[in-house]
């Protein structure tokens, strides 16, 4: 099957099987996303980030942990260190490359925990209504009322410093907005005729929530997650900066900024380079999120 016929097959007006229909709608979404050049820039950066993380041992010119006090705080481009060295003479570029793994690890874990928890709480509260709704939403309000970093700090202080606990703490503070959002969506969805129709077929609440409400909440949730990713990376970096996230000598980007802070006036690159990395990845997530919103919005389906 050559390229043209595959394309025609994917864009067929009348799909011939379940798999065909699903692939076809995915492909149409991809086409919408591809027309958005900014989103493609974001996607490219993120693909590069994943690539970097996977091939870190091959890409990194030096060992990220090997110290060389004789050549400490080398400026950018000297002595074979493309982005200079930090206060212990470690190659900043290599540390940045290995740090991509930690960043992705944090992002992936938080993206698995927080939206799922929020979706669960929000849709159950929205669909059940009554007391369930009141109790679940007041709990959500309590979590929302705390400043995010302060709450995360409290959790980390209670659980102990470390990257896993930082992820857990960030997730615990990140789920309430998702819960609020999916509850609001559920409230509009649950009174529609297509939900009434499936209720008249005898479907129970579990089936309605998981099969009928979740698919409609998920697209806006994905958009919201990608938009929040920047904030999550920054929160992780913030915890790292405060010494409560990744522990030295781990090359976490926030921790690297924290280390470079002492020399920021004389040796600006030590803190600036990881800062730029955080900035780039955050920006990439924001751009992609913006594009995904256009591609996934179910309200555009009718047109």
């Amino acid at each position: 099957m050559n390229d043209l016929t595959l394309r025609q097959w994917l864009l067929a007006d009348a799909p011939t099987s379940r798999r065909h229909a699903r692939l076809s709608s995915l492909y149409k979404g991809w086409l919408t996303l591809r027309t958005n050049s900014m989103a493609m820039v974001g996607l490219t950066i993120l693909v590069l980030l994943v690539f970097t993380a996977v091939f870190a041992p091959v890409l990194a010119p030096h060992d990220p942990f090997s110290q060389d006090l004789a050549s400490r705080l080398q400026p950018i481009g000297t002595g074979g260190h493309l982005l200079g060295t930090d206060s212990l003479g470690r190659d900043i570029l290599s540390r940045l490359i290995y740090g991509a793994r930690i960043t992705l690890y944090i992002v992936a874990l938080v993206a698995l925990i927080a939206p799922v928890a929020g979706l669960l709480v929000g849709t159950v509260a929205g669909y059940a209504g009554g007391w369930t709704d009141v109790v679940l939403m007041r709990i959500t309000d309590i979590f929302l009322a705390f400043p995010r970093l302060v709450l995360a700090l409290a959790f980390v202080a209670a659980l102990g410093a470390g990257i896993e606990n930082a992820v857990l703490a960030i997730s615990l503070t990140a789920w309430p907005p998702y819960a609020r959002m999916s509850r609001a969506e559920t409230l509009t969805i649950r009174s529609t005729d297509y939900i009434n129709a499936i209720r008249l077929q005898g479907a129970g609440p579990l089936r309605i929530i998981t099969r009928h409400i979740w698919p409609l909440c998920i697209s806006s949730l994905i958009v919201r997650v990608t938009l929040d990713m920047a904030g999550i990376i920054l929160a992780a970096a913030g915890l790292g900066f405060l010494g409560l996230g990744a522990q030295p000598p781990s090359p976490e980007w926030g921790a690297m900024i924290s280390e470079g802070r002492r020399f920021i006036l004389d040796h600006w690159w030590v803190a600036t380079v990881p800062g730029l990395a955080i900035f780039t990845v955050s920006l990439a997530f924001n751009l992609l999120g913006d594009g995904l919103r256009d591609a996934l919005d179910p309200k555009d389906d009718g047109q």
Partner: protein
Amino acid sequence: MTALEIRDLDVWFGHAHDRVDAVKGANLSVMQGESFGLVGESGSGKSTILRAITGLAPQWSGTIEVEGQTLSGAKRDRAFFRTVQMVFQDPYASLHPRHTVDQVLSETLHLHGLDNIDKRVAGLLDDVGLGQRFRFRYPHQLSGGQRQRVAIARALAGEPDILLLDEPTSALDVSVQAEVLNLLADLRTKHGLTYLMVSHDLPVIAHMCDQLAVMRNGEIVEVMSSATLRMGNPRHEYSQELLRASVAPQ
């Protein structure tokens, strides 16, 4: 035999001083195999009667009997859903935007505990005059009339005896309306269905139904045969007014 019997039905929304009485003391009975129409202007409570029967309007009092079984509250059991099904007014709102026709129908069949789902889906699509090429389409790839056919197929999936039709054609183009009405008439003959049909369109009711009830402000003002309607001599003055309004040149 009586398929559907309603006595002294009151339906209301809200509580205490916010309470709105949508239906007041309605009585009607539909015989097995009969097609019964409910007419009235918007807000007269005709759709609310259907919603009370299906449990979608939970606050009601009186007696509703379906094939001799008395209903209570808003809970309906599986046997009820296999006896009574409903077609909604707006086919643009009654199909899940993310489910293909195939998903809609096979899930419904699965919920009714039927086997041989693949063959039945094909059969249902043939029944409502949609070809197999529509099987894996999403609702947004269908026209209004095609969507309503899918909704009718979904209602028929559990092989019900009674079909509640909530203005099934009012959201459609005039040309498509006739097609869907003829389809409904054919299906009734083919499957021996009982219809309770709501409409604000007197000609539609006169064409489709044997008996009809005229509603105003939540009350049934007159029950008559459609022969009486066609001859143009309803007794109640409001019915006469409705008739004059619908035959007047537009």
